[in-house]
Structures are given as C-alpha cells and as structure tokens.
C-alpha cells in the first residue's frame, strides 16, 4: 500500500530533522497542555462545587427581607406558615458572632437563634443528644447545641453533653452536638452554636427577623411552596422588591449555568492557543517545503505523482501534530499528578484547594483537535509542494 509507504516517509522525515520537528510540535504541545489543564481545572472546581452542593437539600427555600424594612416578621407568623399549601417546615434565623466561654477557655463563634425544625430543613445531623424542641423555644430554656469545632476549642474533646457554656453572661447547658460536616467552599460548617430563638432575640437585643428557612412537602412541590411564601410575603410587605424567596434548586441551576459558561469560556481561550499552535505548524511546513524543493523535484523526476507529494506532506503534518498532542497530554498528566498535588498549601490560602480532572471527552477532543489542525494547516503547504513543476523544483538551490 502506498499509504503505508507515505507514513514511513513521514516518520523518516520527522526523525531526520529532530530540532525542526520539535519546534513544529511545540505550538501544539503548549496548546494541548493549556487546553487540558485549563478545562481540567475548571471541571475539577466544578466537581468540588457540585459535591459540596449535593449535601444541600434541593427543596430548601430561603426567604430574605431586602432593602428598607416596611414591615416586621414575627416568629409566630413564620410558624403559622407551616403546613400552608405545599410548605412543610419553617424556621426563622438570626445570628451574630459572640464569644463563648467554658472554664478558662474562650472561643469566638457564630451563635444562631432558631426554632425546632431548623435542623431538618438545613439537613443538620445530630451526632449525640438532641436538637431544639418547641418547648425550649416557648420557655426560653437555656440550652445549646454545638458544632464539633466549638467542642474542640472549649473542652478539647467531643463528649460534651451536659457541660455548661457561658455566652454573653448567660449559662447554657449543652444538650446536643452536631455531626462533623467539614468545610464547604472554604468555610467551616462545624463552627457554630444553636440556641432557642426567643433567647437569641434577648441576647442579641434584636427582634427583627431578616431571614427564614422553609422546605416543601416533597421535592416536586418546591415551586408551589415558593409561590405560597411569596404570596405571604407580598401581603406582608406590599412590595415584591422588599423580599426575595429562593429555592436551593434555583441556586443549583444558577450555579450550573455559571459553571458551564466558565467551561465554555476557558475552552474557547484554550482553543486560541491551539490555533496559534496550528499556525506554527503551517509556518514550519512552508519553510520545510521551500527547504525541500529540490527533494520534491527529485521525487517528481523519478515518478512521484502530485498526490504522492501531497500525502507525504499532509501525513507529516498530521503525525507531527498528533505527536505534539500526545506529548501535550503526557505533560498535562504530569501537571495533574505531580505538580498540582505538590503546590504548597500556603500558596492557595486557607481552605483553598486545586483539583484538576482529565476527562475522556477532553482527552479525545484535544487529540481530535491536533489531527484536524494537522490536516488544515498541513494542506496548504502540501498543495504548494505538489504543484511545483518538476524542472523548477530540480533547479532550486
């Protein structure tokens, strides 16, 4: 087969001028490397993001008061929303940063005042003990549920049920400890104390409820529940600009579109470097055509057809760009497995992390890109070479 011979010739030509071949490939190597690394890192961060979002209940609904307060919400009103339409549970939230004390230890943390049901809406698991009850809220019982960071900081251990902590001059008995959640998007989920809403209002000297949480009876009813809450809020405030009701589902969607826009954008930017690599191939192939004009003349004199010459140069370009693509992929694997895991943590800031994904689609895409670039940018020089008159090519010095 002539094709096999053409491949052999291409390899011979590439091997016989290693420096030129390397320079030709360099553009593609850099292009494929930046393409896979950029898209890989975006995909990696996306994965981290979706992983951390996946432990959020998609049917959670957040309601916030916005702008100038035209009305105030009360705990009772929020409680009354429970069971209305598709709304299941509701819970107000007020929070502030305060210092908690236990013996000689102090720790500054987020103190949250809410009601029973909040744990279910937010998907908070209790490792030991219990969460707030309705009577805790009604009777302003001085109880607290703590996150593991608070337990670690104040007691140096996690067996803290029954212990007493002091917040803003009031003693609270610990009745529960949350299960460890780790951090999400760089924020620790374990550094907080939950106390009854009614006590928090006094302690924070704040009676204004600026936000509350709710969930729908089932995941399919989220939209209906959002509507119910919106109707309530509109009646309450009289202005739809003064509040915002958003379901977690909507947040997830916004995130997802953001992420795919990002991927598209980075892919686009990286494609430009691939394109530049392709133009590099074309330049060197053009130089190579004029450098090898005499060779082309000799080949034609002894009987090479135009197609033979064309195939020789196109295959050379394709093999070069494919090899460049493979080397680029090899280097991006080095980035993925050697460089990124060894970036010092101090460079990435607290809780920062960098993950890169090498997916099958990126792999095949960059290889396909290399081949296409080889064909596109190899064709013009090949056409030029094949069109030379044998005698003119032979006379070329």
């Amino acid at each position, binding site marked *: 087969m002539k094709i096999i011979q053409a491949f052999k010739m291409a390899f011979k030509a590439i091997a016989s001028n290693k420096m030129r071949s390397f320079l030709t490939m360099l553009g593609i190597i850099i292009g494929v490397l930046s393409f896979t690394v950029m898209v890989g890192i975006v995909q990696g961060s996306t994965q981290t993001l979706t992983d951390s979002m996946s432990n959020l209940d998609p049917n959670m609904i957040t309601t916030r008061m916005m702008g100038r307060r035209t009305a105030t919400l009360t705990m009772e009103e929020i409680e009354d929303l429970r069971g209305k339409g598709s709304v299941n549970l509701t819970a107000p939230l007020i929070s502030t940063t305060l210092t908690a004390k236990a013996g000689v230890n102090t720790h500054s943390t987020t103190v949250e005042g809410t009601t029973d049901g909040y744990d279910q809406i937010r998907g908070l698991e209790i490792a030991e003990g219990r969460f707030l009850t309705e009577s805790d809220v009604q009777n302003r019982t001085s109880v607290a549920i703590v996150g593991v960071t608070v337990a670690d900081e104040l007691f140096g251990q996690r067996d803290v049920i029954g212990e007493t902590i002091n917040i803003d001059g009031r003693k609270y008995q610990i009745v529960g400890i949350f299960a460890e959640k780790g951090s999400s998007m760089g924020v620790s989920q374990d550094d907080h104390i939950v106390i009854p809403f009614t006590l928090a209002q006094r302690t924070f000297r704040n009676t204004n409820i600026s936000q509350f949480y709710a969930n729908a009876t089932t995941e399919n009813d989220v939209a209906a529940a959002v509507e119910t809450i919106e109707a309530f809020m509109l009646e309450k405030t009289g202005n739809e600009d003064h509040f915002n009701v958003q379901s977690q589902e909507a947040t997830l969607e916004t995130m997802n579109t953001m992420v795919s826009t990002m991927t598209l954008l980075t892919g686009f930017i990286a494609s430009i470097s691939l394109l530049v690599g392709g133009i590099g191939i074309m330049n060197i192939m053009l130089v190579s055509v004029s450098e090898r004009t*005499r060779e082309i003349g000799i080949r034609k004199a002894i*009987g*090479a057809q135009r197609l033979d010459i064309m195939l020789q140069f196109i295959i050379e370009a394709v093999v070069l760009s494919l090899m460049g693509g493979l080397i680029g992929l090899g280097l991006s694997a080095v980035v993925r497995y050697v460089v990124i895991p060894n970036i010092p943590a101090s460079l990435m800031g607290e809780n920062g992390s960098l993950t890169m994904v090498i997916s099958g689609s990126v792999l095949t895409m960059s290889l396909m890109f290399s081949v296409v670039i080889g064909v596109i940018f190899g064709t013009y020089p090949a056409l030029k070479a094949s069109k030379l008159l044998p*005698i003119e090519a032979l006379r070329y010095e």
Partner: protein
Amino acid sequence: MIELKQISKRYQMGGDIIHALDHVDLTVQDREFVAIIGPSGSGKSTLMNIVGCLDYADEGEYFLDGEDVSELSSRELARIRNKKIGFVFQQFNLLGKLTAYENVELPLIYQGISMSERRELTEQALERVGLKDRMKHKPKELSGGQQQRVAIARALSTRPTLILADEPTGNLDSKSGYDIMQMLHELHQQGNSIMLITHDEKVSMEAQRRLAIYDGKVFPVEADLPEEVLNA
C-alpha cells in the same frame, strides 16, 4: 522511439529572449545510443528536460513511443517518468537523508509494487552497479563515483527503456567516469535506448551516433559544423 518536431524553448531574460532550443528536429530510435555534444549554455539540459518530460516546449511536437506528450496530464507524465525513463544527472540528485538502498527503491515505491518485489529489483540494480555491499550507506558516506553508480541503479531499477544521462561523468575523475561509461554500454547492449549529454568530445565518441548542439540548434556531427562549434 523519440520524435521531436520543430521543438522550441525560449527564456525571457530582462529585455532579451534566449532561444534555449530553436526549432529542433530529432529522432532517436529504440535501442539507439546517441550522444549530444555542445558547449555550456548551448541548450543540452533544456533538450534533455523536454525529452524527459520534466519541462514543456513552447512550440513544436514531441512524440514518445507514438504518444503526443503535449496532450498528456501531469499524472500521465509522472507515470512516464516513472516507468519509461531513467534519469542520471550530473549532480547525482540522490536524496541525502535516504540510504543507497532507499534511494534506489524510491521509484519502485511510486510504482506501488509489493515490498518483496521491490527488494528483489532494488538488490538486483545495486548488484549491477557493484554496490550491494554499500546499500546501507547514505550518499555523503559514498565517493562521487559511487554516488553516480547509485543514481544509475535508481535509474535502471524500474527497467526503463530510455536512459537519459546529463553529463553523468562531468563531476567524476577519469577512472570513475570510465566505469560509468562501461555501465551505459552494458545497458545499451541489454536493449535500452540511451541519450548521453556531454560537452566532452572523447566521451561522445563512445556513442553510436553523435549530434552537436549550438545556440539551441541541433546538427549531425558529420555535417559541416559552424566554426564556433568545432572550436568550442
């Protein structure tokens, strides 16, 4: 058989028109050994390039084995160069990156014949020029005479009927030149037509028939030559 009828080739050099070939009539029979002799710039290479289908004439007709060459496509011309004609150039024109074996094999690759057949023909051709033991060498590892022998092996590997040799001994010492001429004689005896181009009177004497070329015009040597040709 080669038949040139009123072939002309002109080059424009600034304001001047150079008649590289000026209404040339020439017939070379099958199995004939013809020498074309002429001084530098007389149009010898131009003639060979047209006969070898490497170049087109501006005027006139060229029949190769009865076929009108001017009617052929570039594809068919390539096939003629590949199958019917073997070229031997003054500057050898080997591919420097290929070994002797690969150089000789190249025209066979373009014929698209099988690898085993190629090996046989290539080795035979190298054997005939006495370079079978050097087939792994690159041109720059060979002497000028050896390189020209590789070029001859390449020319005859496809068993062409016509050998075109443009100053094949021009770049060689007399001993190597003698060897090359012996090879051309051998090829002639085996039935090839040979067109030998030279500016060397002594070399041209080896041919059956001699033609002189001067200022793009061809004359039989026996005829009355212009003074300048005889003195050139």
